[in-house]
């Protein structure tokens, strides 16, 4: 259901790429190169994603860490050792999962 861009950025399934639907969720992560990962969330209309729950999951889908986006809609955490996924839990139609394999510097 997700449109996966060449790199990291994902847009929730409610939005077509480049579409003009208001309020589609956008979420992206990158590797800071120092053993930490930073993620940013937001919405296509510019509204804040501050406070949205971010779940870090291991290879089996178990939640290993649960965080919240800060006032700047960002969060950083220690890079998990094995395979992992990061989920932007924006609720129905606004949730996005990024595979750790696609999170690069």
């Amino acid at each position, binding site marked *: 259901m997700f449109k996966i*861009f*060449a*790199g*990291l*950025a994902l*847009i929730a399934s409610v939005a077509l*790429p*480049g579409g003009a639907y208001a309020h589609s969720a*956008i979420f*992206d992560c*990158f590797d800071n190169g120092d053993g930490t990962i930073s993620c*940013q969330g*937001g*919405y*296509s*209309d*510019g*509204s*804040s*994603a501050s406070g949205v729950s971010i779940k870090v999951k291991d290879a089996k889908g178990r939640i290993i860490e649960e965080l919240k986006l800060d*006032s*700047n*809609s*960002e969060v950083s955490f220690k890079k998990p050792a094995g395979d992992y996924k990061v989920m932007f839990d924006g609720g129905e139609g606004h949730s996005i999962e990024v595979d750790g394999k696609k999170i690069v*510097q």
Partner: protein
Amino acid sequence: MKKLSLAALGLAGAMLLAAPAHAHFMMTYTPETALEKAADLDFRIVFTHPAEAGHMMDMGGVKEFYALHQRGDGEAKKIDFKSLLKEVTWKNPDSSAPAFSALIPRKELRSMGDYMFVMVPGYYYEKEEDVYMQQITKLLVNVGGIPGNWNMPAGLPCEIVPLAKPYGLWTGNVFQGQVLSNGKPVAGAEVEVEYMSHAPDLKKNALSPKSSVNYPNGVMVTQAIMTDANGVFTFGLPKAGWWGFAALGVGPDKKHDGKELSQDAVIWVQAVDMK
């Protein structure tokens, strides 16, 4: 008789097009303004006549080159790129002058949101008219689709604030902007408009000698529109590509080095065909 007058008309037309145009345009250019993800951005800063690949001018160096980055309603952050500037020689078919390049690494742009690029050049001396010119130029780039500060003033002496998302325009859309001087709207300002009809070649540091537009006369090369009582202008974009807007003489500085100064506000927008 008919032949003669046509020839005369043609000659007059050619002279019109060849005559030094008054639309000097500061170009702050990078090929794409709406990026799905961060990428290296190759910039060129060139003072020329982009509709005609015409006369090149020496902008007198670059005083400031930075971006104001903002995502959503988060904090705006200033990123200085002046140290990345390199002087190059930009060669148009019949003219060349010093210009600047900057390769902004992907890492600087990996945070999603708007990047409002601001370029403040030095002063160009226009010998013919014995005046100085300074065109303060803005260009908006978006990464990842989350908007930010595109419709906010940068706090420049003079600027054009977009009222339509400048990196999200279809061909045929209108571009609307508000002209500010010291943060206040300028009513009745003349805004010149040019289409970049000669594609920039970043490898050669040149505008292509081939024009994508056949101009019927000189009037159509540089269009003009006036701002209303709120300093707002609205201009339809009839063709995909780059459109430059220059609000002339709107800045608060009226003199430089004892001579008259035209401090102008420039913005570039990119229109994309709806396919």
